[in-house]
């Protein structure tokens, strides 16, 4: 597509529920990234996919967080047993590869109540 598409744009969930966030990168971009942005923490790296290589998961804050990228395209970020501290805007970006500038999606605002 023309840009990076994220869905849903907003998600309100109850504490303890699981959520799935979707990212559809720009066609042909081999690199895909997930970040989150919250008031107290700024922009934090979560996970990075590059082509067929094993993803860099070093930024995932706990084992409740996981992500996959199917067919080198769409990615899903899953948060299990959500907690209130998971409330944030989750941003996805893609690039031609890691040596190129990022294009960010509009984000998913997650609120855990």
């Amino acid at each position, binding site marked *: 597509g023309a840009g990076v598409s994220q869905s849903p744009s907003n998600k309100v969930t109850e504490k303890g529920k699981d959520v799935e966030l979707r990212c559809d990168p720009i066609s042909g971009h081999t*690199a895909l*990234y997930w*970040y989150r942005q919250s008031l107290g923490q*700024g*922009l934090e*790296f979560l996970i*990075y996919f*590059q082509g067929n290589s094993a993803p*860099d998961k*070093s*930024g995932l804050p706990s084992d409740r967080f996981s992500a996959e990228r199917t067919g080198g395209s769409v990615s899903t970020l899953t948060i299990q047993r959500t907690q209130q501290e998971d409330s944030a*805007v989750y*941003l996805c*970006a893609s690039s031609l590869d*890691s*040596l*190129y*500038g*990022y*294009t*960010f999606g*509009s*984000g998913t605002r997650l609120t855990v109540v």
Partner: protein
Amino acid sequence: GIQVEQSPPDLILQEGANSTLRCNFSDSVNNLQWFHQNPWGQLINLFYIPSGTKQNGRLSATTVATERYSLLYISSSQTTDSGVYFCAVPRGSTLGRLYFGRGTQLTVWP
């Protein structure tokens, strides 16, 4: 880990004024990006500039990698330039992990 410091944290300008935003980083890098986050939260990549100077309309950026800083220049500012400006550099040896500074909040008044 690498430290990224942006200054000033806040900047208020009258429309038409020029400004310079600074990004200092603590370690050598081979990738530096500048982003603008508009008031609606959308992050736009302004420059990919590991070294040298680039210009795009009223915006230009210079990175002096040997001295570990980058500058973003905004000339003839407009109200649409308002928002937060971030610089970001790789974290560690993995190019895909960017570490973002805390940003400069720019407000341009008409």
